[in-house]
């Protein structure tokens, strides 16, 4: 049955129709569809992580609150962090990598379309695996950083940590497969004339992100493998009573973890660097400086990990080195900020929703960046560590930075992705609610932190002066949540409207705006030839005004990769292996063997299937 459905789909595609129906989505290898799948899934997880945050805020709204038990509180803050990082921000960025990168470089798909589908399925299954822990009443409860030896069998005997470590391991496979794919895509699939130094800046920053993924994820993979051996097979890598070293976990985790925070922010840098020039009607100021500062940031990312560990007492030499290296990052980041300001300076600014979010991004990120430099100094850090000051800092970079940047991207590329314009008035309402809600939620945390309120603790006593600001934060958190309700309403409202977005609604500069909105399956009827950094602006200048709408064309004669369900089978095999590992004390090796057999079956059929 499956095969005939596939055949029908192929025949359909050959006739120039877009395939429809559930099966066409399950077997899709189209980067645009996979991008939409990533976006929809990640946004769902984002809402879940948001609800978790609201529950935490209700608990902290009043002193000595008993709304949540300490155990549930631990589960919620762990899952909030893990979800937002691995299931929301990273895959929301991946949604844009998928949809936008091939369009920006003038390609018809990524280098390995089926591997791309595999990445998505593994991500989805990993996310479901992690969240299945709620159903078993065993949600991870040791923080997103999972410090040893909180995670040891002795201190965490249940399934909580098992769900966390195997879920993250699965998600790591998805990230690595995607990183290999996009690294190759950016280097190899560029249209003629698209030299590296002509690539759109979003593609550049995403490319650097792939390098970070490739080099950082193997380290967390090993850290998690060691944890798994400690928990399942009785090794003592992180067990100090047996000579092991819990600090090793911290080192490995942060060797991954610091590049990881740049993995979360660099795509947003790229998005903002696309949006600002388009709405300021000026080319990006200092393109080369932008590219090289991005590379420099990524390079430094691997040399600063231990600034997360000043409190462990590494000694004056290590502290000095890591402190200086950390502060060095302020230089390339400052270069970026001044370039953004230089881009906007003297521009004829169009106040559209994406521009609002992009401008707010710059302001919010400066605040988060500055408090980051403050932690870079060990004596200051020793005062700030484990307080709400740190919580304030990373929400200013993760929310004020990444989420504002991603929101700018969502409003900017929405017409290209779905052929519909989002409502401007609702968009601006979303923006103002989000900006005010965000600042009122997180700015007071700086003050609470400096006044000594510890993070990760489920409540606080009366009379320490924490009450008013905490209540304000809780109320504002709901304002922040309301802003996303407006966003959802905006999506639903405009979805009912006509699909009438023009190809180039913003008068933009890059290749994705030269083709119809939404693009046809093959993206470019003819592969474009690129002569500069802003190909569409150059074309419009030559033409002496806006270009005519590009016509929809028949795809006859354009060869596209065949749909395939083997990536899904392979991903299912991998998930089955992870589940088998989890049940190793019940099933013996058989669960793993069964999963491995499915995996191998999927891989072989994948390898010998005609890719088209």
């Amino acid at each position, binding site marked *: 049955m499956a095969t005939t459905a596939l055949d029908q789909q192929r025949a359909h595609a050959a006739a120039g129709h877009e395939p429809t129906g559930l099966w066409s989505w399950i077997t899709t290898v189209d980067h645009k569809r996979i991008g939409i799948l990533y976006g929809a899934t990640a946004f769902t997880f984002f809402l879940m992580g948001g609800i978790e945050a609201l529950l935490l805020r209700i608990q902290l709204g009043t002193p000595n609150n008993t709304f949540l038990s300490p155990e549930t509180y631990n589960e919620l803050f762990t899952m909030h962090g893990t979800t937002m990082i691995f299931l929301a921000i990273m895959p929301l960025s991946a949604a844009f990598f998928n949809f936008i990168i091939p369009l920006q470089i003038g390609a018809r798909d990524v*280098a390995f379309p089926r591997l791309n589908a595999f990445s998505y399925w593994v991500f989805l299954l990993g996310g479901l695996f992690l969240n299945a822990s709620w159903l078993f009443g065993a949600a991870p409860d040791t923080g997103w950083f999972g410090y040893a030896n909180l995670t040891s069998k002795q201190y965490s005997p249940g399934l909580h940590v098992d769900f966390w470590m195997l879920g993250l391991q699965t998600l790591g496979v998805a990230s690595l497969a995607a990183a290999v794919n996009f*690294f*190759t895509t950016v280097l190899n699939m560029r249209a003629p004339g698209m030299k590296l130094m002509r690539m759109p800046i979003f593609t550049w920053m995403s490319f650097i992100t792939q390098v970070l993924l490739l080099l950082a994820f*193997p380290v967390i993979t090993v850290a998690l493998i060691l944890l798994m051996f400690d928990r399942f097979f009785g090794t*003592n890598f992180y067990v100090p009573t047996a000579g092991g070293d819990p600090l*090793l976990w911290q080192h490995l985790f942060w060797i991954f973890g610091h590049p990881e925070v740049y993995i979360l922010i660099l795509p947003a840098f790229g998005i903002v660097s696309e949006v600002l020039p388009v709405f300021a009607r000026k080319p990006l100021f200092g393109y080369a400086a932008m590219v090289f500062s991005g590379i420099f940031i990524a390079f430094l990312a691997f040399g600063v990990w231990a600034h997360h560990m000043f409190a462990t007492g590494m000694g004056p030499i290590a502290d000095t080195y890591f402190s200086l290296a950390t502060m060095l990052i302020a230089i390339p980041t400052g270069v970026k900020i001044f370039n953004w300001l230089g881009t906007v300076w003297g521009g004829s600014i169009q106040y559209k929703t994406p521009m609002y979010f992009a401008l707010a991004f710059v302001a919010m990120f400066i605040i988060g960046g500055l408090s980051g430099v403050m932690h870079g100094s060990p004596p200051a850090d020793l005062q700030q560590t484990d307080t709400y000051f740190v919580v304030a800092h990373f929400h200013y970079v993760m929310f004020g930075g990444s989420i504002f940047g991603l929101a700018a991207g969502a409003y900017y590329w929405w017409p290209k992705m779905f052929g519909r314009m989002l409502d401007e008035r609702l968009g601006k309402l979303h923006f103002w609610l989000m900006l005010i809600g965000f600042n009122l939620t997180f700015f007071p945390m700086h003050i609470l932190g400096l006044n000594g309120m510890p993070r990760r603790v489920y409540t606080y006593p009366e009379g320490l002066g924490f009450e008013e600001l905490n209540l304000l934060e809780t109320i504002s958190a709901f304002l922040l949540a309301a802003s996303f309700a407006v966003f959802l309403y905006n999506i639903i409202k405009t979805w009912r409207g006509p699909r009438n977005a023009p190809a180039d609604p913003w008068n933009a500069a890059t290749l994705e705006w030269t083709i119809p909105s939404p693009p046809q399956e093959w993206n470019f009827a003819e592969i474009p030839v690129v002569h500069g950094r802003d190909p569409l602006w150059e074309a419009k200048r030559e033409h002496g005004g806006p270009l005519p709408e590009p016509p929809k064309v028949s795809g006859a004669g*354009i060869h596209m990769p065949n749909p395939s369900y083997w990536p899904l089978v392979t991903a299912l095999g991998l998930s089955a292996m992870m589940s088998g590992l989890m049940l190793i004390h019940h099933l013996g090796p058989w669960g793993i063997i069964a999963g491995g057999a499915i995996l191998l079956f999927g891989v072989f059929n994948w390898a010998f299937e005609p890719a088209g």
Partner: protein
Amino acid sequence: MTDTAHAGHLETATGLDNRKLAIWTFIGSECLFFASLISNYLVHKETWLTGPGPFPHEAWTSPAGKVFEPIIEIPLVTLGTALLLFSSLFVVLALANAQRGNRKGLLLWLGLTLLCGVFFVGMQVYEFTHFVHKGLTLKTNLFGGSFFVLTGFHGTHVTIGVIWLFTLWIEAFRGKIPPAKSLNLEIAALYWHFVDVVWVVIFPVVYLIK
């Protein structure tokens, strides 16, 4: 094994094959994987002598008076090391034959590569069982844990390489690797050489350095 969307492109932007660039990217990523495992081994090496034996290079007497001799068998592992190095030579010879369209030569050298790989894995299985008999398991001490995990993951990579090369040997036997498709073998060979150079590092670090 031809999962590339060359749609519209006859040439890639760099002129390099997608799959070859991808395997190199993957190998680059794997450098960090093995570096982390080796770090784990070296970090614990600084302290494991406090735990119960046996140890790789040092004898240890238990409180009950039982003597555990140093456990590493250098001659056996030297043989394994040589096998892996020769397999690297054989696989380039197989590739050279594939590129020239000499199917017999391809089958011979690829077969020898496989044989070396299988013997290497066999050597490791023997070594692991031998160690377990001498009282060293994952749980015994930090040497046991970090040794088995490091060499075990390397052995897993060798095993995957053997399965991969065996699939290619069958393909070659069926005449499905003409010179135009020799890249299929070149990619597998790059992976195989990488697994070999990882052993080039593991061998002195684990077996020779005290």
